[in-house]
């Protein structure tokens, strides 16, 4: 991997870098992991005969003085300061011909830092169509660098450019860049990127702001000078700009704009929430079916192996794969929105609201997706460029009530609030559901507000945002992004989810009560197989045994051990077991309660017998286990608690650390415990329950 020469693609966001990267590398691209950076850097190969060149698609940057973490990655790679194995052999500067003057600012910086580069010109076809005339040879002459036309959507240009790369790339890496010039250090200082770039700070006697301002003015003048020499634009406003003006009159209209976005995001939400469901059910069905088929090969006298295979391995695979539809749908949609230019408009419209909390408009997408599932939502925080803002968003996103909590809410509402009198003519269950969602959003915003001012203290992100020209999004590129993200999730988070599933299986399986197992075998054997209700009776025996085995297992004992801690919240040991089991996925709480109450496997929230069992369960002193207050306390707990290993695995992947998921688990659990404790104890003092 390190032996091939490395070509890096540098350029402004929206320069057409990614399209060119995809065209150059075809389907061979993959998301690379690099130590010390938390964002995905895409790498791909160009292979011709026995020659191989590694191409890296750097995050887009407007400047070599980075303002955000993703820009810093691009700049550090260009300067050869990111990692020893990531020193470029060749830098390609991607320039959008339709915005040449602004994009030449980067060229002026490279020139002044004496960094050698090759120019890849994109969008020249659009420029031609709009009547602009660009002297490509002249540009090469003024810059003193090779310039090639290389629009990603023009196969001939891509083919020729690929050949030029193979010819031009040399075996030795580029020499170290001298980052000592004062103008550059002043720019880096004002951009606040000293640590990232690693240049010395300008001395205390230097007015960094004044030096930086002069430097930018000079660089911008140089860019204008170059553009004026080689580019002639017609007087009339280019067609793509006029089209963008027209679309923005609707999209950014103070009334129509938000309405269009509500519809757009409503569709996205619907896709995540509803349309992904059949796909997820399909995955369950196929994985489960294959499991059933394969478990037949395990002999009947090896029940433990069968259980390990079905409840450990197969359900582990299912637990991992089940996230793929939502991840794929979300990233397909996000990629289309980003590519078309719509996502930048969302930030424009939402800046007022989101900056109140201290977050960027872009944090909206993870928040919204969080209502479906925190896993894809956390992966979608990639769009937030400030590291601390991104961490804040990751930390609070799991507080948003995801769809896996809904079965739990439903079960509790249907059992303990079923007979409650309507309040203000509205069903109590509706009020409670409404309250649960309100609490979750309120908690997420409040905790974000707190984190932004304490632990992850950082300024309210400045909204300096380019609203790019609208372009037709490319479905192929979006599909590729979706596939890459899904694959990266399977690779990085899948192992953890699979491993935890096995651990949970073991907790709920060991130690086994061999005597009870033998008794079950004997009882089943003794059943009169000809009796009409033989099947039911066998089922009843098995369910009773399952409840006993659960009680006997580590998880069951843990539930009992936790009872003193949980009883101030109004929970008994059975709820404790359910809470442990729901770490696999929150909805598992429901089926675990089914198991605990001896109703066997596969109970769902609609089950009448489960509702009855819960309603009629009493403590030894005759008090009901489930009062409305217990139900409320339990809902508060489920709103706030971190009970999802997959979310933790996603956090671990996105932060590239174990510290953050551990912290996330700890603060959410503490928050949930305290909130439930207050709910139950205050409720009792007020005479409820």
């Amino acid at each position, binding site marked *: 991997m390190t032996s091939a020469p490395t070509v890096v693609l540098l350029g402004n966001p929206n320069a057409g870098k990614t399209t060119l990267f995809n065209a150059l590398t075809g389907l061979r691209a993959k998301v690379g992991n690099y130590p010390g950076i938390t964002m995905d850097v895409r790498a791909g190969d160009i292979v011709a005969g026995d020659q191989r060149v590694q191409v890296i698609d750097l995050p887009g940057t*407007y*400047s070599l*003085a980075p*303002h955000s973490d993703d820009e810093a990655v691009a700049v550090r790679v260009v300067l050869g300061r990111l990692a020893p194995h990531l020193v470029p052999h060749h830098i390609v500067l991607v320039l959008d011909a*339709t*915005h040449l*003057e*602004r994009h030449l*600012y980067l060229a002026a910086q490279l020139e002044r830092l004496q960094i050698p580069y090759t120019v890849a010109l994109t969008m020249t076809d659009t420029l031609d169509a709009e009547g602009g005339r660009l002297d490509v040879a002249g540009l090469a002459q003024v810059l003193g660098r090779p310039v090639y036309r290389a629009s990603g959507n023009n196969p001939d240009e891509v083919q020729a450019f690929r050949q030029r790369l193979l010819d031009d790339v040399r075996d030795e890496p580029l020499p170290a860049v001298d980052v000592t010039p004062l103008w550059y250090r002043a*720019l880096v200082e*004002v*951009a*606040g990127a000293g640590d990232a770039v690693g240049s010395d700070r300008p001395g205390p006697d230097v007015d960094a*702001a*004044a030096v*930086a*301002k002069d430097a*930018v*003015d000079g660089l*911008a003048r140089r860019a204008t000078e170059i553009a004026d020499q080689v580019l002639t634009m017609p007087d009339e406003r*280019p067609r793509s*700009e006029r089209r*963008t003006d027209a679309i*923005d009159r609707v999209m*950014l209209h*103070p009334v129509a*704009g*938000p309405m269009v976005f509500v519809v757009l995001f409503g569709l996205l939400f619907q896709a995540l929430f509803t349309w992904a469901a059949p796909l997820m059910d399909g995955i369950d069905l196929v994985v489960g079916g294959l499991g059933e088929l394969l478990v037949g090969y395990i002999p009947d006298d090896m029940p433990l192996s069968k259980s390990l295979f079905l409840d450990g391995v197969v359900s582990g695979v299912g637990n991992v794969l089940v996230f793929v539809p939502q991840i794929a749908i979300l990233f397909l949609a996000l990629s289309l929105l980003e590519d078309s230019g719509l996502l930048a408009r969302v*930030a*424009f*419209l939402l*800046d*007022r609201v989101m*900056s109140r909390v201290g977050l960027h408009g872009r944090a909206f997408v993870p928040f919204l997706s969080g209502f479906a599932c925190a896993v894809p939502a956390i992966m979608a925080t990639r769009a937030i460029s400030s590291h601390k803002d991104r961490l804040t968003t990751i930390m609070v996103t799991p507080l948003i009530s995801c769809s896996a909590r809904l079965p739990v809410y439903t079960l509790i509402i249907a059992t303990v609030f079923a007979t409650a009198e309507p309040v203000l003519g509205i069903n109590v269950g509706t009020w409670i559901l409404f309250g649960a969602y309100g609490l979750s959003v309120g908690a997420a915003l409040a905790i974000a507000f707190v984190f932004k001012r304490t632990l992850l203290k950082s300024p309210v992100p*400045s*909204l*300096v*945002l*380019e*609203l*790019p020209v609208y372009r037709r999004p490319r479905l192929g590129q979006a599909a590729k992004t979706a596939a890459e993200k899904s694959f990266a999730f399977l690779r990085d988070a899948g192992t953890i989810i699979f491993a935890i599933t096995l651990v949970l299986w073991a907790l709920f399986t060991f130690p086994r009560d061999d005597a009870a197992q033998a008794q079950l075998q004997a009882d089943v054997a003794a059943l009169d197989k000809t009796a009409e209700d033989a099947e039911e009776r066998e089922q009843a025996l098995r369910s009773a045994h399952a409840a006993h085995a659960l009680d006997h297992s580590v998880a069951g004992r843990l539930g009992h051990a936790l009872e003193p801690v949980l009883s101030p919240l109004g929970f008994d040991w059975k709820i404790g077991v359910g809470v442990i089991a729901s770490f696999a996925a929150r909805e598992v709480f429901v089926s675990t309660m089914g198991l605990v109450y001896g109703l066997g496997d596969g109970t769902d929230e609609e089950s009448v017998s489960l509702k009855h069992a819960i309603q009629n369960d009493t403590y030894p002193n005759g008090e009901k286990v489930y009062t409305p207050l217990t139900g409320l306390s339990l809902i508060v707990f489920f709103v706030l608690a971190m009970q999802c290993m997959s979310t933790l695995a996603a956090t671990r992947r996105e932060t590239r650390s174990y510290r953050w998921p551990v912290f996330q688990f700890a603060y959410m659990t503490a928050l949930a415990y305290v909130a439930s404790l207050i709910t139950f104890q205050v409720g009792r003092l007020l005479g409820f329950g």
Partner: protein
Amino acid sequence: MKTLNEYLPGQKVILGRPALFDEVALRLAELGLCEGATVTITRRGPLGDPLEVEVKTTRICLRAEKARQYPADLSPAGVRP
């Protein structure tokens, strides 16, 4: 002198030197909002903030609070039709 924030959508202005050349001002300058640049105010966001301006076919958003730091003169080229 009026600031960039005080002009109306459709007006074309010439930017002066910003009161504070900080990180945001640097980024704005890198996007083309330099001293002396001709800038068209395009529109305002819902409730008046942020502000969208255009400089050489690049659309840029900035908050009103930042726009207040830029002195600006009406450009002789006047109002874009």
